[in-house]
């Protein structure tokens, strides 16, 4: 998926920047001499290597290639580097190298994309080697200065000691000399056994909290540059629509307004002294849209297209063993159900934004991004300049959740800046613009059919998914003979990321791809979210139909999947499964594998006779293989329930006349504090693999709660969000 860039003979660099399935390739003129330069911004001391700068005052600067959007990756990656470096954690700070520096230095920092819960798990090996290599070089420099063998020196918290001669020095004192030491071959380095970790693996406080409690943290929306103007934008609400014409006369007469411009073929922006002036004036621009044929599409049309796919003859096979259709044909006892899952918007708290300066020679962009390299590609494309003449300054994100791996807002900001050369332009979307122009969670329906044998064992299972493919919408070149393998997240055969855990003698999981006109995107948890609802609610249905306990039924099916089973058992035990619940409370279970980790949840809910649901408590288990910062994993697990329950209860975007109907939190509610359950988080790393933690738990939130709602009411909710369900009982 991700390709390390190598400079070609002609002096051109081809780089790919990837976020999940999203790959962009672009060419960058690459002067050979530039390879020698490129210390990251902000460093005042020479780097020991690409990952580590140590200043004379002993400050340790760890370079972080991935983006921090709240998920704690910045701290976790710094812990991994510091662990191998054996530095003083109290002196660790971080900085982002820029995407252009990464290109110029032959992608020394590897992949900058931050999605798919990959930030730590996919870079853990090379960042640890980076820390270890820096340590070796620092020790070598000290030993050479003393004329002693490096092997006789020891390090503790950045202090190098040669016991035999009773000498010691510090990293800060030898850093400059260390920068001249020949670096060790990374593959030759033996990394520490995680059981010996002293900095990694511990619940250390985050490095980026302090500025977030006093208003000092600068987000993209807060950026100020000298001479900067502000822009507000309106893109055609109908996807695929265009600007037919616009009249800016009234807007131009408004205070502070500098310019009204068309951006691309589908948007109009107002540039003014302040954003509020720009936003107000934008409302006075008379825009005539050419909605095109999409302007006639309704939600019911999309639903009908998906429903047709549930029984369509042709479908892509994602997982198969035995002969499920044949076995189901013979089955005497069948269970069948149809589920659906809607479009959803990421709704990051900070709306999309980017700040750009364009001149004929250079384009600079400041933006919160989950993928600095893809942002650079967007800036290069929009500016018409080679990438080496562009620069992306990554800014802390006010939420990402997958939305900020897509850079339409960078295209727009540069598109405006290009019409006002030399003037910094900050483009900020209104919440309404953000809601209308998401990259939406894909819409799907699912029909599940199970066949039981005489003993009530699951003999055959057919899961037919019908609906949207993100890859087809974003990067169709990555389809495999038309198949999008990511559709089967959590339901996949084998692999080490999304493995289906249940052993079913006759199994068929297939996908009828039906792509509506709504642009899809990676929405935190992605396809694992609906797949977990489909399989984990349906397994509950089948267990009940077989007259079996949902836990025991799952246990029998997980006989070949010990890690799935372990997290399920953990939540069953801690969640009190099989023991009496408080009066009126009912429990539900769910377990799945995703993003390389194993997760499970046991939810405890009550439902009033009027149908009001209260989620009291969720017990959650995560086996991510290795746990770099357990308290941050717990934070991700808690946050995942907020994101997942908000989606399960309330969130859907619906299409009317080709555009989304929901424009703000009044019609697209988020979970709030009064609805937040208590969360008990069990972090149970079993070692030997690296899984992600930012996303997988979201997937078990909805099915655990829906199964508990069934236990409470006898009613199955199969169409999400559950605000539509009548749960009176």
């Amino acid at each position, binding site marked *: 998926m991700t390709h390390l860039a190598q400079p070609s003979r002609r002096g051109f660099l081809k780089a790919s920047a990837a976020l999940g399935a999203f790959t962009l390739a672009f060419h960058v003129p690459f002067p050979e001499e530039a390879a020698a330069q490129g210390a990251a911004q902000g460093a005042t001391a020479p780097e020991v290597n690409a990952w580590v700068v140590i200043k004379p005052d002993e400050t340790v600067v760890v370079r972080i290639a991935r983006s921090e*959007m*709240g*998920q*704690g990756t910045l701290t976790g990656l710094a812990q991994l580097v510091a662990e191998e470096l054996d530095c003083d954690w109290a002196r660790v700070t971080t900085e982002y190298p820029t995407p252009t520096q990464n290109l110029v230095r032959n992608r020394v920092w590897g992949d900058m994309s931050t999605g798919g819960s990959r930030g730590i798990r996919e870079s853990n090996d090379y960042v640890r080697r980076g820390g270890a290599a820096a340590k070796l070089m620092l020790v070598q420099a000290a030993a050479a200065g003393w004329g002693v063998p490096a092997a006789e020196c020891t390090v503790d918290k950045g202090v190098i000691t040669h016991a035999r001669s009773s000498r010691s020095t510090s990293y800060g004192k030898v850093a400059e000399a260390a920068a001249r030491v020949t670096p060790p071959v990374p593959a030759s380095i033996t990394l520490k056994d995680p059981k010996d970790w002293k900095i990694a693996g511990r619940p250390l*406080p985050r490095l*980026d*909290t*302090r*500025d*977030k*409690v*006093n*208003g*000092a*943290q*600068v*987000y993209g*929306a*807060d950026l*100020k540059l000298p001479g900067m103007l*502000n822009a507000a934008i309106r893109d055609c609400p109908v996807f695929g629509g265009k600007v037919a014409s616009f009249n800016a006369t009234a807007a131009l007469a408004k205070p502070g307004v500098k310019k009204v411009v068309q951006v691309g073929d589908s948007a109009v922006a107002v540039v003014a002294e*302040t*954003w*509020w*002036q720009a936003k*107000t004036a934008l409302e006075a621009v008379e825009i005539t849209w050419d909605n095109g044929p999409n302007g006639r599409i309704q939600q019911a049309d999309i639903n009908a297209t998906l429903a047709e796919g549930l029984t369509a003859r042709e479908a892509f096979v994602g997982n198969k063993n035995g002969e499920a259709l044949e076995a189901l044909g013979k089955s005497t006892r069948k269970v069948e159900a149809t589920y659906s899952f809607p479009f959803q918007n990421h*709704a*990051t*708290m*900070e*709306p999309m934004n980017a700040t750009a300066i364009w001149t004929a020679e250079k384009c600079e962009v400041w933006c919160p991004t989950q993928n600095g390299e893809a942002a650079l590609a967007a800036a290069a494309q929009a500016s018409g300049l080679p990438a080496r003449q562009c620069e992306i300054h990554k800014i*802390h*994100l*006010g*939420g*990402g*959740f997958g939305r900020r791996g897509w850079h339409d807002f960078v295209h727009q900001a540069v598109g405006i800046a290009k019409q006002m050369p030399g003037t910094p332009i900050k483009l*900020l979307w*209104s*919440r309404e613009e953000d809601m209308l122009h998401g990259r939406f969670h894909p819409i799907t329906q699912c029909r599940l059919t199970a066949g039981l044998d005489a003993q009530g064992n699951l003999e055959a299972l057919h899961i037919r998914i019908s609906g949207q493919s993100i890859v087809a919408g974003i990067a169709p070149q990555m389809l495999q003979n038309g198949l999008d393998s990511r559709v089967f997240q959590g339901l996949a055969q084998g692999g080490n990321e999304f493995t289906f855990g249940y052993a079913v003698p006759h199994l068929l999981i297939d996908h009828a791809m039906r792509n509506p006109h709504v642009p899809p995107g990676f929405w935190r948890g992605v396809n694992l979210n609906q797949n977990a609802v489909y399989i984990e609610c349906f397994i509950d249905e089948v267990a009940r139909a077989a007259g079996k306990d949902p836990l025991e039924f799952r246990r029998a099916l997980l006989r070949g999947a010990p890690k799935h089973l372990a997290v399920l058992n953990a939540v069953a035990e801690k969640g009190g499964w099989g023991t009496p619940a408080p009066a009126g409370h009912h429990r539900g279970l769910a377990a799945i594998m995703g993003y390389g980790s194993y997760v499970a949840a046991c939810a405890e809910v009550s439902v009033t006779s009027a149908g009001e649901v209260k989620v009291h408590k969720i017990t959650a288990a995560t086996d991510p293989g290795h746990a770099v910062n357990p*308290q941050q994993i717990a*934070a991700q697990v*808690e*946050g*995942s*329930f*907020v*994101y997942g329950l*908000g989606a399960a209860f309330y969130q859907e975007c619906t299409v009317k006349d080709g555009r989304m109907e929901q424009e*703000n*939190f*009044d019609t697209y509610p*988020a*979970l*709030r*504090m*009064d609805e*937040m359950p*208590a*969360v008990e988080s069990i972090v149970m790393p079993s070692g030997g693999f690296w899984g992600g933690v930012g996303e997988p738990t979201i997937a078990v939130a909805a099915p655990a709660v829906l199964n508990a709602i069934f236990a409470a009411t006898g009613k199955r909710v199969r169409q999400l969000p559950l605000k539509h369900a009548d749960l009176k009982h």
Partner: protein
Amino acid sequence: MAKLNVNGRVHDVQVDPETPLLWVIREQLGMTGTKYGCGIAQCGACTVHIDGAPVRACSMPVSAVTEAQKITTIEGLSPDSSHPLQQAWVALDVPQCGYCQSGMLMAASALLASNPKPSDAEIRETITNICRCGTYNRVIAGIKQAADANARRG
């Protein structure tokens, strides 16, 4: 021309009287700790205090505020991040992305000022700010820790 008393200082601002207080604070006064999230008083990211009471500044025109009213923003909650809530937030690592946390802290500090020892239920009922990262349980823990610290201090 409006006169605004923000964090103990009176500012003269020249602005359309319909401009929301949020944008005056962010754009005329240059204090960007107070955030824009929704513009319709739904999310609370723009929460400030007016005479100690929490107000969603995105939906309050600047003309509705008088010079006599004292506005406090996150930058004025304490001079050195020493407010018990700020200390609790750091101790418990409450923020994730952090974008909503200015508003959370302003809503929480207004709550503690009027109710020094709120119950869980009172916290849940009073703090209606949206956090998409999902920090709610740590926010509740932070408010209780700050309340305890205040109680110990007397």
